[in-house]
């Protein structure tokens, strides 16, 4: 009898404890798993996206949170490695109970994490991955949402820029990986009368481009389209400049090399006339909402000349907050459903997630780098916000 009562008391205590925990969880912060490259060569991307996430979370929390609860960021380093990235996501789901994720940053890591989002039924907003494969065919599922313009959209936009550059023939160069293949394929599908004169790919993460530069110089094209990014783009420019590549060919570069961080790193070494794209540029003054965002970002980062990556993280948080608010719950199935067709006011205007493709119609800047008088850092001129 005593034993039976002890069991009942224990069960009651356990039940109270569980209920208490649940009550705390429902009243506590909403955890956002943020998985980004925070070390190595990709760290500047991760830190940039995370700055935008932090700023948006602060805005949300200062305004009273979502459903009366604040956001809490749980940041993990993906190291640009799918194995590390997926391990981080599983750790956050299992140990922290995270149901909403922002990141990872690249196409390769995003593809890997998206499969976990599908299995575990957690919301995964990709702020920056561009590969079509992330939300195409069998890879598309209810819980993955892609905010960056995909390579098929980029391809069509790029051809419009090529026509504006009066390109007659093009050579393709870049790393031999998914983004290059997808983007080049989309350009080829749209380029009409523009002739292709050759494709010169280099292994992923190669650092010496002298052989390719020589090939590009000796090829019969008037315009070069490339995809090396970050430090590799900087290396390409520095190696190609003394060969005179930028004086003999017109050059258009993908991979968001219009980012101000790239221009700042290269300084006077960035060749004038190079066409590029970027998710954001701090010196765009065409929208009041963008000016307000840049002012807040400058205060957050302590510098006026900000990079392009924060806006991707910022928008991701705004979408998540709006979806949770619309769903009236943090349940990931309901939040994912609310994201379908959701429109959010961003610094660059309204952005909507297409309910059929789970892709957002995010705009991007295209422009031509020029050094203005008195500054070593080039800015994009002929700036076009392409939607």
């Amino acid at each position, binding site marked *: 009898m005593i034993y039976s009562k002890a069991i009942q008391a224990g069960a009651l205590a356990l039940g109270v404890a569980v209920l208490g925990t649940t009550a705390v969880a429902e009243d506590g912060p909403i955890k956002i798993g943020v998985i980004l490259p925070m070390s190595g*060569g990709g760290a500047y991307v991760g830190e940039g996206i995370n700055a935008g996430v932090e700023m948006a979370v602060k805005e949300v929390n200062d305004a009273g949170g979502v459903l009366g609860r604040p956001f809490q960021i749980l940041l993990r380093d993906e190291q640009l490695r799918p194995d590390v990235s997926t391990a981080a996501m599983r750790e956050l789901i299992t140990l922290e109970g995270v149901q909403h994720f922002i990141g990872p940053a690249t196409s390769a890591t995003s593809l890997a994490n998206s499969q976990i989002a599908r299995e575990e039924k957690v919301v995964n907003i990709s702020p920056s991955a561009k590969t079509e494969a992330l939300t195409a065919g069998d890879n598309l599922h209810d819980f993955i949402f892609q905010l960056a313009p995909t390579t098929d959209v980029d391809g069509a936009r790029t051809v419009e820029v090529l026509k504006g550059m009066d390109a007659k023939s093009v050579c393709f160069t870049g790393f031999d990986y998914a983004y290059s293949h997808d983007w080049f394929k989309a350009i080829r599908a749209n380029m009409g009368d523009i002739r292709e004169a050759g494709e010169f*790919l280099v292994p992923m993460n190669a650092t*010496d481009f002298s052989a390719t530069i020589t090939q590009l110089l000796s090829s019969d094209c008037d315009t070069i389209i490339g995809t090396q990014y970050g430090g590799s783009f900087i290396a390409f420019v520095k190696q190609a400049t003394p060969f005179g590549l930028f004086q003999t060919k017109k050059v258009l570069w993908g991979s968001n090399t219009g980012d101000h961080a790239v221009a700042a790193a290269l300084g006077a070494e960035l060749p004038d006339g190079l066409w590029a794209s970027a998710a954001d540029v701090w010196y765009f003054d065409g929208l009041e909402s963008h000016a307000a965002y840049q002012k807040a970002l400058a205060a957050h980062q302590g510098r006026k000349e900000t990079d392009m990556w924060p806006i991707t993280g910022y928008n991701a948080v705004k979408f998540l907050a709006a979806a949770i608010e619309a769903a009236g719950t943090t349940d990931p199935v309901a939040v994912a459903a609310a994201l379908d067709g959701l429109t959010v006011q961003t610094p660059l205007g309204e952005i909507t997630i297409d309910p059929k493709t789970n892709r957002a119609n995010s705009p991007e800047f295209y422009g031509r780098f020029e050094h203005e008088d008195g500054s070593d850092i080039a800015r994009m001129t002929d700036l076009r916000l392409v939607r």
Partner: protein
Amino acid sequence: MQVVYPRNALNDRKVRRMFTNPTVLFIQVMNSVSLAMNLFIIAAGLTLIFGVLRIVNFAHGAFYMVGAYVALSILRVTGDTDLGFLLGVLGSGVVMGAIAFVVERGLLSRLYDKEHMLQLLFTFALVLVIKDIVKMIWGTGQYSIGAPPFLRGAVNLGITYYPKYMLFLCALGPIIAIAIWFFMERTRWGRILRAAREDRVMLNALGTDVKMVYSGVFVTGAALAAMGGALAAPRSAVDPGMDALVIIDAFIIVIIGGLGSLLGSFVGALILGFLTVMGSIYLGEWVIVASYVMMVVILLVRPWGLFGKADEERH
């Protein structure tokens, strides 16, 4: 100074048929040698450390990265001048050498008599520590160091124009190789180093301060890595990931050349340089596999590398 660029120096439509155009062939050969010499400067320090200390230094790539960052900081102070670049290169060697001295005396020297695994783990841990310190000091951004003004642009070689800075690297590699060879083979200090490599117990018994010999070798190897980083910077970006790839190339070079062999590193660098440049034209993405296949084939034929010594030859 007028900068001369190779405008329309190349105009061959047969892009992949490189051997039909002597100009393009010449440029690709020069590209191969330039890359090889850049890699040799880095690998020389690695092979020097292994040759005497018998330690496989995983942190060599991190030393290379520190060199580039130190040169960047020096150039920020001196401005973008020829003298500033020279000070940047030399200063990177001095600063890294000083750090290496502290690390060797304070930590690494305690592991000489321990098993190799502990030494490997130590140098690997050193990589992680250095990367975090670099991140704390210089952040995660990307930076660029330009070539010194007198080495910018291209020079007319008769057959074509070629970038001055790459020619400079082509010349610097052999100069450093000859300087190290002369030091090792023709000076008293070199004889001591060779003796330390063969039998440090005997050398100690003969009254030589072997500890300082070891410190000197580690400091010299680290300084070479750092100066290699500073010299590579005008052709690459300075960022927190720049160490990861170069350490792989450096290890391939010293393994195929023979661990501890200076001549082996020189030849190994030339082989890898030509394979990387020519291979990227004809092999595409397979060029990475090709360098590993080459290493495996060489090790199957000569497990001690092209110019290394088998254990039985040592004793």
